[in-house]
């Protein structure tokens, strides 16, 4: 369609689900095939639009979990009172399709030239864009140091657990911990940040993503710790973790 070829216009395109992966009891990854996909930057998202037979429509934004060069992949957390997430995490099968618009974003993005060291702080499904960033760093053989501070409710809720084992990740489990857990067991606070974040004098680049309250608290903590406010990028999801 000629309209879709116009540069600078973001049009809705039909994405087909090629595979689904249940990451945790509440979280599912959907691998997508989007005709005309021209690639994306780590940290970007897509808008997803669902239309029902009766014309009812709902739209939500989801971060891309894949690295540049890889096909578009999104990871969705099911929200109890959600309109879109229950459909994407429970009903969707490979072969199903919905509209997407994107990739979107130019602020909450990382390219290897942006350097580091990288300090990534994720609350719940806020880890999704972090996965894209870490995969991109690895795929591009970047020598930038990276550390992920990842807050989850329980070990069962940790997304991409096996994959993250290969990275420098510090977990904190805020609601319940498995027997013998020696890691952090509380919400991120100033002391925790002091112990985990790269020192301010290293000039780190920070990305903070998750529920609004998590982002505000961590970003404020990093500023107090001495991070340059201009080198802290924030992305807020809704209060319950989705957008």
């Amino acid at each position, binding site marked *: 369609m000629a309209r879709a070829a116009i540069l600078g216009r973001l049009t*809705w395109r*039909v994405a087909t689900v090629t595979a689904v992966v249940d990451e945790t009891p509440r979280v599912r990854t959907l691998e997508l095939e989007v005709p005309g996909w021209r690639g994306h930057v780590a940290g970007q998202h897509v808008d997803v*639009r*669902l*239309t*029902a*037979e*009766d*014309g*009812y*429509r*709902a739209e939500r934004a989801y971060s891309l979990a894949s690295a540049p060069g890889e096909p578009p992949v999104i990871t969705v957390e099911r929200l109890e*009172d*959600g*309109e879109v997430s*229950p*459909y994407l995490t429970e*009903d969707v099968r490979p072969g*199903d*399709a*919905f*509209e997407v618009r994107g990739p979107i974003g130019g602020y909450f993005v990382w390219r290897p030239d942006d350097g580091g060291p990288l300090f990534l702080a994720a609350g719940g499904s806020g880890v999704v864009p972090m996965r894209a960033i870490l995969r991109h760093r690895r795929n591009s053989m970047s020598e930038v140091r990276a550390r992920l501070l990842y807050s989850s409710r329980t070990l069962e809720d940790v997304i991409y657990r096996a994959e993250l084992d290969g990275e420098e990740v510090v977990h904190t489990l805020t609601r319940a911990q498995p027997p013998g857990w020696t890691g952090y067991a509380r919400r991120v606070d100033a002391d925790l940040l002091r112990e985990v974040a790269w020192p301010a004098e290293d000039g780190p680049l920070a990305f903070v993503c998750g529920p609004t309250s998590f982002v505000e608290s961590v970003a404020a903590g990093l500023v107090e710790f001495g991070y340059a406010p201009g080198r802290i990028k924030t992305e807020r999801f809704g209060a319950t973790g989705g957008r």
Partner: protein
Amino acid sequence: MSFVSRGFRSRRRDTDADPVRVPPGQSVTRDFPVLSAGPTPHTPLDRWTFSIENGGVLRTWTWEEFRALPSEPVTADIHCVTRWSKLDTTWEGVSVDTLLAEVDHDAGYVLAFCDGGYTTNLPLEDVTGGKAWVVYTYKGEPLDPEHGGPARLLVPNLYFWKSAKWVRGLRLLDEDEPGFWETYGYHMYGDPWREQRYSGD
């Protein structure tokens, strides 16, 4: 119409609802979505007032004075322009008739004004004759700040954006003037039964 996704439907729909109570284009929900144009205000009750103005203040009540006014329970169906409806919601508050009775005026319209700056306009006819209240209780409990507490306007006959949250008073007008959403193209009147969502509907 855009691409339809297999099996997708609105989750909120309460299919037990009697269709005759549901205006066109609406879906009945069991939950109570919180939608806002700004941060939740937190005016302390000892500084809260409700006023009726027309350029100058004609009458004002403190929270204590307001709570001492005769109040009544209200059960109403509410309809939001974003297409959700909620049936049999229960409130308690002061009828706008009671408030306007204390003031001499011949205004044709009112503009409700609120903490945070939100406004919405209504014909006087639609806030009198037992059609509107300033409510402070929802489901038997003090109205939650998220839902407009300590007090909000309740005008069930019109789309719910007219039931202004965090209401602090009514300005009496001779002519209709658009409030916040009306300025951006929402309907000046907003009758859900005639599906008056946008200007020109």
